[in-house]
């Protein structure tokens, strides 16, 4: 495919068009992904997650600048929520990163969640694949402002960076499962605000717990992303984590998890398509739906019947 050839040469327009193809679930998408897959597996994929307003975009901007100074190329996929009612979205992550637009070695793409849950878009992994094949050394995936359960990012990255800020009532939050469980690196951004020391202590105790179950103890960093403070340390930790993954054999495990996630999601998608879009299946669906609505049958038997053949 011509677009793939252009992508492999580093053509940004081709990269953008390919991401649109997979994002729109275009009929060419699966052919594209099949062709791309063999060119992937070289990029360090890093997730940046945390609640709204903690400074994820500013942090990604800072991290990218430092990594560029170290001579590496960076891809960014930034996700913002799509309105459930209108299907529209304002994608505003570029505002914090405008300086990067004209950097040859950076590619940045904004995505709406388009109804997908878990803090990322359905095509997030595929967009990362495109940037991987393009030859980016590091790809950041920035999630939507994430609460306790938006931890799906873990399935698509090698390293997760969890960003928090002081004053958000995290003493209790730190004890909860979910998002805190996924951090390989903790960042306390807006570190000049009151309560930063306390938050650092709390996150350190979470890190201690994690270190009892695994070899890697998540480091806790304090940053002020808007003026670059503490950013170098976070980049060092990201690089150290990759090294740890490779030396401990954990990298292989995460790759397997990623492959499993991608495979599972694709099967789910194909099944959904089969149930809703396949030939005659729309009719069958509507018939069964009517029966359910008229209480002639129950939703559970009807669902099984729909997927029978």
């Amino acid at each position, binding site marked *: 495919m011509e677009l793939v050839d252009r992508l492999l040469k580093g053509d940004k327009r081709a990269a953008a068009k390919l991401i*649109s193809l997979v994002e729109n679930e275009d009929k060419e998408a699966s052919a594209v992904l099949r062709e791309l897959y063999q060119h992937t597996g070289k990029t360090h994929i890093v997730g940046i997650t945390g609640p709204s307003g903690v400074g994820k975009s500013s942090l990604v901007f800072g991290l990218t600048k430092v990594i560029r100074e170290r001579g590496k190329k960076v891809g960014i996929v930034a996700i913002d929520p799509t309105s459930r009612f*209108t299907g*529209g979205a304002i994608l505003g992550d570029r505002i914090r990163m405008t300086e990067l637009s004209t950097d040859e070695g950076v590619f940045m793409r904004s995505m709406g969640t388009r109804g997908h849950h878990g803090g990322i878009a359905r095509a997030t992994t595929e967009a990362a694949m495109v940037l991987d094949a393009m030859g980016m050394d590091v790809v950041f995936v920035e999630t939507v402002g994430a609460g306790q359960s938006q931890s799906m990012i873990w399935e698509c990255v090698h390293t997760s960076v969890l960003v928090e800020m002081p004053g958000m009532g995290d003493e209790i939050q730190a004890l909860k499962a979910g998002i805190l469980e996924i951090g390989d690196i903790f960042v306390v951004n807006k570190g000049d605000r009151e309560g930063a020391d306390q938050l650092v202590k709390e996150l350190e105790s979470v890190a201690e717990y994690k270190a009892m179950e695994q070899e890697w103890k998540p480091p806790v960093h304090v940053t002020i992303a808007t003026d670059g403070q503490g950013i170098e340390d976070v980049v060092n930790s990201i690089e150290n984590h990759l090294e740890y993954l490779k030396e401990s054999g954990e990298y292989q495990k995460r790759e397997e998890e990623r492959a499993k996630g991608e495979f599972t999601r694709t099967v789910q998608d194909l099944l959904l398509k089969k149930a809703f879009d396949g030939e005659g299946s729309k009719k069958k669906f509507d018939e069964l739906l009517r029966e359910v609505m008229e209480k002639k049958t129950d939703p559970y038997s009807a669902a099984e019947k729909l997927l029978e053949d």
Partner: protein
Amino acid sequence: MKKIRVLIAKPGLDGHDRGAKVVARALRDAGMEVIYTGLHQTPEMIAEAAIQEDVDVVGLSCLSGAHMTLFPRVVELLREKGAGDILVTAGGIIPDEDVPKLKEAGIAATFGPGTSLKEIIEFHRKNAGK
């Protein structure tokens, strides 16, 4: 499913982005994906962002009077980069006599003060992604 993607950008030095934000919101509420770049963009930044985001339309807003230099430059850069198919529209304070010149320079539409949001939405629905 394809969605209409629009980049709303503020080239130049003025800091008035109320209009740009109102348009961005209206397009969002019409079901489009709107990428907002923030203030003080150079034409180079805008063209690059438009390409990486694979948008159908770039909406430019400028209230400083520098539109005759900045807007055509965005069109020029997009063409140079092989992305001349991306539509460029213009809003802000644009004197009537400049409108034909902007059209000649490749601006697809101008939406001056008083334009209804409905008109802007309809333009996008009709012309985007062709």
